[in-house]
């Protein structure tokens, strides 16, 4: 490399660095006429498939709401940056947005980051948060007063599944047997204690409990264990797609006819399409309606907005719906505070959230949502319909 070339490279790097540092947006704190929502989203990295859709859902809701008059006349502003699903990067993002934009609400990528930023955000006394995670620990009103879940906890979802299994087996003399297959992660383990407790209460025998890695698993030994246990139902927790299709394929090859079920993040198109390709009808619990559901006016609005503004989008994912719903809850909290003439402080926003005991989400959550416990504890079973190639309701809405 010649000296001239080296200098040019160094100059280019310097110019690029200056662009980042000097060209950075100046401090732009929340103006009184606007409400800022911060976002620490995993736009790159292992969970980017979810982060990009959630970011789009929340961003689109803000744009739609502003186009429809905002919140009590005040505009929403959404500021988000990429966390890469890394705690260090996420903490930097949260602190940066907190310092420059002074948001009243924050969408945070997952449990590790929610926990790592909890003390600071709670201490600020000015922000309410939600996240992708449905972990039980984040729905604790006493230790996490600033946080809520835009859906049920994983445990509550398992309770809904157990309720469904118990109700459908009412006529039968023996209760169906259940196997729990879950990943060795917080996402996988979190709902299991509640699942087992509810099963015991309802007299449903848990005949196998299998823990695997989150992905890239050789499932043959686990399928052998399942075959020995002969469960009527196998519930998967802590996976999005892989290794569920591989499990089901090997289970069918082994002659097992168990019904396979999942919870929220494994209920998206990628999973049910992968299983449908094998002739399987995937089933599980969903806290929200699917986009094709005609009964929800919020879903109709969402469909209309997406078809107009994202013409390339063929399918509205669960992650997008989750982001949209998070935006709706943030707006409702702000609206209630403004109408009560109260500033957007944590105690006021928490009180507003807890007053949402019968909140109409426009049918998105089926039943009117009760957020008084900082989560929405309802859901419905859906099953894949091979004729329509869609997920169809398999039960009514169940609240636990």
């Amino acid at each position: 490399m010649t000296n001239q070339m080296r200098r040019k490279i160094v100059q280019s790097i310097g110019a690029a660095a200056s662009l980042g540092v000097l060209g950075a947006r100046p401090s732009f704190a929340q103006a009184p006429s606007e409400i800022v929502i911060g976002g620490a989203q995993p736009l790159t990295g292992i969970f980017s498939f979810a982060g990009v859709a959630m970011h789009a859902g929340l961003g689109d809701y803000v744009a739609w709401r502003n186009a429809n008059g905002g919140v009590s006349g005040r505009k929403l502003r959404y500021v988000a940056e990429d966390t890469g699903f890394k705690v260090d990067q996420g903490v930097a993002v949260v602190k940066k947005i907190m310092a420059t934009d002074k948001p009243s609400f924050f969408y945070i990528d997952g449990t590790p980051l929610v926990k790592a930023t909890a003390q600071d955000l709670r201490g600020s006394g000015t922000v309410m948060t939600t996240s992708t995670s449905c972990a039980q620990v984040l729905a604790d009103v006493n230790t996490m007063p600033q946080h809520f879940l835009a859906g049920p906890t994983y445990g509550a979802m398992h309770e809904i599944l157990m309720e469904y299994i118990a109700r459908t087996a009412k006529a039968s003399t023996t209760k169906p047997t259940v196997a729990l297959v879950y990943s060795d992660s917080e996402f996988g383990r979190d709902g299991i204690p509640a699942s087992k407790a509810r099963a015991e209460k309802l007299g449903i025998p848990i005949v196998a409990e299998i823990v695997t890695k989150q992905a890239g698993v050789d499932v043959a030994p686990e399928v052998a264990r399942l075959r020995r246990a002969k469960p009527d139902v196998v519930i998967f927790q802590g996976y999005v797609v892989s290794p569920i299709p591989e499990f089901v394929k090997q289970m069918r090859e082994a002659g097992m006819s168990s019904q396979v079920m999942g919870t929220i993040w494994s209920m998206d198109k990628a999973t049910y399409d992968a299983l449908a390709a094998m002739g399987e009808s995937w089933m599980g619990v969903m806290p929200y309606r699917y986009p094709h559901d005609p009964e929800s006016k919020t879903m109709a609005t969402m469909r209309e907005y997406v078809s107009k503004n994202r013409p390339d989008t063929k399918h509205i994912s669960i992650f997008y719906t989750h982001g949209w719903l998070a935006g709706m809850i943030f707006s409702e909290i702000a609206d209630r505070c403004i109408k009560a003439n109260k500033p957007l402080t944590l105690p006021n926003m928490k009180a507003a959230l807890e007053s949402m005991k019968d909140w109409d989400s426009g049918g998105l959550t089926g039943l009117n949502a009760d957020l008084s416990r900082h989560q929405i504890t309802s859901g419905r079973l859906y099953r894949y319909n091979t004729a329509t190639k869609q997920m169809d309701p398999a039960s009514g809405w169940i609240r636990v």
Partner: protein
Amino acid sequence: MRIGVFHETYASEERLWDSRTQRIWMAVFALALFALPLYGSDYVLAIACIIGIHIVATLGLNITTGSTGQISLSHAAFMGVGCYTVAWLARWGVPFYIALLAAGALTAVIGVLVGLPSLRVKGLYFAIATLAAQFILTFLFREWVPVTGGVGGITIARPTLFGFEISGDRRMFYLIYFCVFLFAIASANLARTYIGRAFVAVRDRDISAEILGVNLLRFKLLAFATGSFYAGVAGGLIGYFYGAITPDYFSFTLSVFYLAAIIVGGMGRVLGSILGAIFMTFVPELLRAIAHTSSEWLPGIANLLLPMGQVVFGLLIIGFLIFEPHGLSQLWSARVRRLFHLWPFKT
């Protein structure tokens, strides 16, 4: 124009900062750093705190791997041991300075246990042994629920000093950089002692070192214990800084992060640890900032630039390894400093 330092005594040559100019610059730098909480934004301070903690951990790995040549792939797990120790001691009201020392000490003991196979195996084989330790320890972090809180993690009470709570990044900054200063000085001094020279002898040719009278058992384990002590303290600091942590943080990826930091920064050099930790933390942030800023002028470009940031980061590391295999510290010493010394002339 200053072109070099003329040493008249051995003591003068052995000084950490061997010229007046160097001492003045160091004082200016220390002053600027000390005043950072007064003028830095919350974001800058958060990044500075994270970098500081990574520097402490990288200094430790540079002793084990850089100076002594024992590849450790369990550094993140050692940090985890330190973090959980601090979390437990904080629950019992143990002052942070004792908790941090205890975290370092316990991690050092575990480091010695992990380092024991180094007597029989070395190189890649030993690296695999440390990899096993990484997985065993992270398994314990997830499974030993009564102690670690399991996958849900654990909360760590804020440290206090004489009733004064060290909360917020501005206060944590001083605690973290006090440790950075202390450990950097300790590392630099260690390199000038018999122990430090024995470490290097073990790294360069252990058989020759043994013939020269270096006790391999003692020094290999000592290197592991020292590096682990640093990791334990860094783990304690990360616990205090975040206030809550889950086992996911102490992943194998973090161990690789530190290994990359010492390679990029410069193996076996204190400055290498510091520059490596800064590079590995700051450059991804810078690339993200560039992507974010660009998206304000060209909407939608962030979707393209953000994933590309990781590619650029990887290419930068490869570039450094090819063009400056001795790391950033060598780049600083041999090029930047020399440029200042000889300007307007060139070598």
